[in-house]
């Protein structure tokens, strides 16, 4: 590989988790740094350049969310949080704090790799100002404000476009209900999730080949929506084995 390997900082107090993450990531062309505590993580992130941070929420010395907050206060490095099931409120809080995505424990390495790649791509797209996002048959051109499905230009209302635009800016990553409501309807309507539900349903009728089983605009129950990662949308069945 000509490009330097992206550097991942793993923050987890479980040595076994760190070990399998390191092996899995290194096998897939990443360089890995490890930290066992929150303090160590913050030090590591300031001392060395890091391309992405993976933080476990249960750390011995401080809450994982503190680590997210501290790193986010000076850096835009992508952060992926390792969380447990049935903690949706916590996930929402972390995403609003600036985490880019979460993975529910226990997880397979493929699921984590997919999230890591999405987060890295978003970072590089933001840096290069790449103007369009393609998910399966759908292309969203952020520069010309057009949406093309199977080569056909779609007619969307301004709000429908705005919704798609916000999701496209975070393509592959989950966007919380509150964030979408604020961006599309304004901060007054941040609690009106039913607006969003109805809207998404209508939008899916326009953009999804099978609206009852959406593959492009994916629901993250209790958290938000995600514009599917390109490979996920193309061959719907490759979603990593999610357990838990």
């Amino acid at each position, binding site marked *: 590989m000509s490009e330097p390997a992206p550097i991942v900082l793993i923050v987890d107090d*479980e040595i*076994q*988790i760190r*070990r*399998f*993450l390191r*092996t*899995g990531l290194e*096998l897939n062309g990443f360089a890995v740094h490890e930290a066992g505590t929150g303090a160590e993580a913050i030090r590591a992130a300031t001392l060395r350049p890091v391309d992405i941070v993976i933080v476990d929420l249960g750390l011995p010395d401080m809450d994982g969310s503190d680590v997210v907050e501290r790193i986010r206060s000076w850096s835009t490095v992508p952060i992926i949080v390792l969380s447990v*099931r*049935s903690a*949706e*409120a916590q996930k929402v809080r972390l995403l609003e704090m600036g985490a880019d995505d979460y993975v529910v*424990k*226990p*997880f*397979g*390495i*493929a699921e984590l790799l997919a999230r890591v790649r999405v987060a890295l791509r978003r970072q590089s797209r933001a840096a290069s100002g790449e103007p369009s996002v393609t998910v399966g048959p759908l292309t969203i051109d952020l520069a010309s404000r057009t949406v093309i499905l199977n080569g056909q230009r779609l007619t969307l*209302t*301004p*709000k*429908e476009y705005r919704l798609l635009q916000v999701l496209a800016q975070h393509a592959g990553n989950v966007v919380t*209900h509150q964030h979408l409501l604020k961006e599309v309807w304004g901060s007054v309507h941040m609690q009106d*999730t*039913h*607006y969003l*539900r*109805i*809207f*998404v*349903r*209508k939008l899916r009728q326009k953009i999804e080949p099978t609206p*009852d*089983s*959406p593959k492009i605009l994916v*629901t993250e*129950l*209790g958290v938000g929506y995600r514009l599917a990662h390109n490979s996920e949308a193309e061959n719907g*069945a490759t*979603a990593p*084995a*999610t*357990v*838990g």
Partner: protein
Amino acid sequence: MSVTLSPRRLRQELRGILLTLGLVALVTVAIFTFVWYVGLTRGTIAYLVPVLIAAIRWGLIAALFASACGVAASAYFFFPPLYSFQIRDPQEVINLLLYIIVAVTVSQLASRLKRELEHSRRREIDLRDLYAFSRRIAVAFDVHEIQAAIEDHLTTVIQREVLLFASARDAAIAAEKRAGAALPRDVYARIAAIDASGAESQTDPAAANVTVSNGDVWLVRAVSPKNREFGVVAINLGKPSESSIDDMHVRVDAVLADATATLERLGIAQAINEARMRAETEQLREALIGSVSHELRTPLASILGAATVLSTAPALAAEPKLQALALDVRSEAERLNNDIQNLIDATRISSDTIKPRMEWADPADILDTALERCRKRLARHKVTLNLPQDLPLVHVDAVLVKQALVQVFDNAAKYSPPGSTITVAARARDGRMILNVSDEGAGLTEAELPRIWDRFARGGRTAMETSGSGLGLWIARSFIDANGGKMNAISDGPGRGMTMSIELPVPQAAIHTMENDQDE
């Protein structure tokens, strides 16, 4: 017989003496009348009447006074020398002796009668109270009711503030709630000491009195010296005299002996003990399941993660057998994780820590997410989805409903043969959203139908072929309940498949929103 002259007693005696004086005067007038008109020479025997009346009504002192007055009056009015108190006639001395004997005997008899009457009256009240008490105990269902009954009974009988505690810990919490103020520290210390001392050690009655800083005397003792389960009782005696403390002790002893006998007869000690043990066991079990499942999940995350790394490792790509092993580790770890997750869910349900996070959700989204989660398990079944376009939104905890649906799909996949169809249908009707999941599988007999909701229920006819903890449907129903919904199972009989029906409430606002979703 000790006579203490309390002001009340003094007043009573004085009243007796005055009335006696009146009676003697009355009798004197009567005798005079008889002597004057009838010509009776001597009617002094009539002075026995006031003596008798006084003895019966007003006691010994009044009776003796009546005797003295009678003799004095007869000496003055009827025995020579007239109008002088001089006693010459031996008849007068005999009269005096006679009166005194009558006075003493009758007043003793009368007072004994009165005491017996009083005693039997009190006994009757006590018995009535005790009867009411035992009736209340007999219908009491838990320890608290029994303790409240003992407390009330003691309060009625002793007429003092009575507090009963199951234990010293209970005393610390309950005293404030019930007495309105904290229990005096000395009293609390005493309760703790009794509670801590073994069940066999007899409570020393002398040490049971605790005098607190404001001068009140508290009586603190175990309800039963033999059975510590009956609790500790604390009675505020106020500021009593020495003798009334003893009296109170006797009464408390009597009541508690009765109460203890009743409690023992009804086997309350055992019941209390069993209830306590049951509660403790249940708590321990839940805690154990909870902590064990959390402990298990941590290493499982490593196992599962490592297995996924191994199964995709390039080094294993050329070793299909080894790769298959790695995949086995991974799928078994996933199964184990599901079981552990079920145990954790079950613990959350039984410990009542499920707090639904209600939000507006599209039922189609919930169904799709649940199907997505079960895709692997449903891979060998045909799934048909039958959703109308205008489904109303529901206001639920979407994650809980999804997890319930996952259990339902899992169940359908488990109990219906590969290749058969699982039909998912949704419709809104009468303010309810109904989600039906129908399979073409084993179905249920009449007898099996109600049993599927039990914890650890397993399909009897199919238990050998299927795996699982039997928690699934119980969890599903609890989750749906938590969302204000209902879950039902319908089956036409064994071998004819079954339909799981989930009903969720649709708030009126949802329908309203559907009509108003204008863009811009």
